[in-house]
């Protein structure tokens, strides 16, 4: 399969690019929500518009009412979300949530998937238990209790947690914190008794929750997939989320880069456009290459994942790490090349820097994925 978009994918990209550039732009979305002190984390009307275009069902099987497409298509949407810094529950719901629920009971699917497809339901992943992503270690417990389970523990960096209808929770039903086995995934209703949310605003104006589970009782119907055997499903969910975050990062990088090259062509100093200076030209050209290479790594990982390849796992980590590094370079060079105005809130380039930082951390930063590439490669 060639490493570029098929005609159908290119058509989707054209539609999505126009739609998000218009409806999801920085001024009407990110800045408006931020400046109004919004506590939802996204604009529900925009989420419904995503649904009208069919975007919310991209990764949901046709049998479940979705489009049954793949990570290449989901990545097309995420790239544009990234380019426009659009606050959206797409990654947490239509990618991470949908991937988890693909292996859920029909009852559980029926509870959430139609809502995602309709752009009304939001899901959030409750996984991290410390400041750094470390899914190999899960201490939160789910003890058997009657016909169900009792959840105890704490999660953090639960993005869209306060607005989510349900949390996708990874908890331990057997073994000890560092065991690979003994994990079970649950879809826990947001307002279940015993859940405590502490919503915090992050540097990029997104909202994440610290969630406490104090003896939260859930019935067996909330279990996604196999009891104790949830690690394989969690790995799938993580691969989907990571390759999605990588796609979004390439959008962040390309948005910052476009803004920066435009600035190099308009700003004058010493009587010349600053883009005439070779010192800046070479840095811009280097950055262009890094962004192109990151794009290639991401589409390769998407295709491998869609094709069910055994190489997908390592390539997903390559994509997340490479996209993080490239986008990070783009925002740092962006602020520097904008000079003083790059430090002002008025200019958008700083917003890209903030978003990059949050996305880079989500589901493992570049160092986490470098470590993972080494481990998967046997060293």
């Amino acid at each position: 399969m060639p490493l570029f978009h098929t005609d159908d994918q290119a058509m989707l990209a054209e539609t999505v690019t126009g739609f998000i550039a218009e409806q999801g732009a920085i001024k009407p979305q990110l800045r408006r929500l931020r400046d109004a002190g919004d506590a939802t984390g996204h604009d529900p009307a925009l989420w419904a518009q995503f649904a009208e275009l069919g975007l919310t069902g991209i990764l949901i099987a046709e049998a479940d009412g979705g489009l049954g497409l793949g990570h290449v298509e989901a990545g097309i949407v995420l790239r544009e979300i990234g380019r426009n810094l659009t606050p959206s529950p797409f990654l947490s719901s239509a990618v991470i949530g949908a991937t988890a629920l693909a292996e859920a009971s029909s009852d559980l699917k029926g509870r959430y998937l139609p809502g995602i497809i309709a752009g009304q339901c939001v899901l959030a992943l409750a996984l991290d238990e410390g400041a750094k992503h470390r899914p190999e270690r899960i201490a939160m417990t789910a003890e058997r209790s009657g016909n169900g389970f009792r959840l105890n523990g704490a999660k953090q960096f639960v993005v869209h947690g306060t607005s989510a209808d349900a949390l996708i929770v990874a908890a331990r039903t057997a073994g000890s914190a560092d065991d690979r086995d003994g994990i079970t995934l649950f879809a826990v209703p947001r307002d279940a008794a015993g859940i405590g949310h502490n919503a915090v605003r992050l540097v990029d104006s997104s909202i994440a929750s610290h969630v406490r589970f104090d003896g939260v009782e859930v019935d067996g119907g909330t279990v996604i997939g196999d009891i104790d055997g949830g690690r394989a499903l969690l790995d799938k969910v993580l691969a989907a989320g990571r390759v999605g975050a990588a796609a979004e990062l390439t959008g962040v990088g390309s948005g910052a880069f476009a803004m920066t090259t435009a600035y190099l062509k308009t700003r004058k100093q010493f009587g010349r456009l600053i883009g005439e200076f070779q010192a800046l030209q070479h840095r811009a050209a280097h950055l262009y290459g890094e962004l192109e290479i990151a794009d290639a790594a991401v589409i390769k990982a998407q295709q491998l994942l869609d094709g069910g390849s055994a190489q997908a796992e390592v390539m997903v980590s390559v994509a997340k790490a490479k996209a993080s590094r490239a986008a990070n370079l783009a925002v740092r060079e962006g602020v520097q090349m904008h000079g003083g105005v790059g430090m002002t809130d008025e200019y958008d380039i700083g917003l890209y820097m903030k978003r990059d930082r949050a996305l880079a951390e989500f589901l493992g930063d570049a160092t986490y994925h470098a470590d993972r590439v080494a481990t998967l490669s046997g060293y």
Partner: protein
Amino acid sequence: MSELDAFREEIRAWLDANCPAEMRLPVQDEDDMCWGGRKFVFKNAAQKTWLERCVAKGYTVPDWPVAYGGAGMTAPQAKVWREELARIGARLPLSSFGIWMLGPALLKFGTEEQKVHYLGQIARGEIRWCQGYSEPGSGSDLVSLQTFGEDRGDHWVVNGQKIWTSYADKADWIFCLVRTDKANKYQGISFLLFDMTTPGVTTKPIKLISGNSPFCETFFDNVVVPKHQIVGELNRGWDVAKYLLGHEREMISGAGGAERLNAIGAVVNRHGGIDNPVLRAELAQFDIDALAFAAMGEKFLDEAKVGRAHPAQPNMMKYAGTELNKRRHELLMAAGGSTALEWDSAETRGGAAARSWLRTKANSIEGGTSEVMLNVVAKRILDLPGA
């Protein structure tokens, strides 16, 4: 089964039956490669057999037209061919500047007669080519070249000097940039082909920091070149040269799936282990960049085949690929420790690691320096002012 799957099965079966076992062993260095040409000495019988079998099927240049010695494969078929070679670790049957550089230029600019004649020779590995571009006074500023061809009616008489001519001492013919109009800088250069045995051509190998001599100085003293040996129009050789440089940069970048794209952490670990967490981290960062660049190479080739790649993209590829390869060899030297410093011991196959490391330093100079590549990207892709 799709047509492409059927094709894959056909290729797989053919390779099973025809690729000798020795030709599935990893290439250790340039000596293991088959370069063809009049002076080439096959390393073993398997190398010769492998070449002959591929030549008979047009597989040395799988995507060239059958009439010019190729197999006429479509882009997806050629990709399958590359993938199937890689799957069994098969060596390329033939490596040559004729295939990678001159061939594409002849396909675009050559006359029908030239295509049939020269491309066929290249495909069969009969003629080994070298490239006469750089001169002592014309490196990055190539267009300032001075080697002059004086018009004598039905031929030119060429005088001048080239430098950094790769394997000129092993080559049979040269494709050479020659000034044919001193009044016009860009539109005063012609692209000539001539036999290295023509009277007046001499070569002198240049000893490099690696101790090896892959490059030569090449001197022309009243060399007679018949007029029909020009490619493209008179004084428009710069167009041919630039087109060819794109292919050269693509080749040096390693986009075609060269060894330099491979991850190295696992290999280093097998040869003695990695007991230093900082080295492990650097290897992992390298592997990420190498695997990402491999995807870039694949994407670029896929896009180029259907005309979707930016025409200046090989400049970015060349810059990124060569800087990556230099980093690769710095890491291999670091991982190898004092053993890798040995210069001529049998255990290190004559200091292969150290010599390869030094050789890679030329990657970001030959075929256009990294700095020139960045200039071109800034100008032609980013459209930055005054670039």
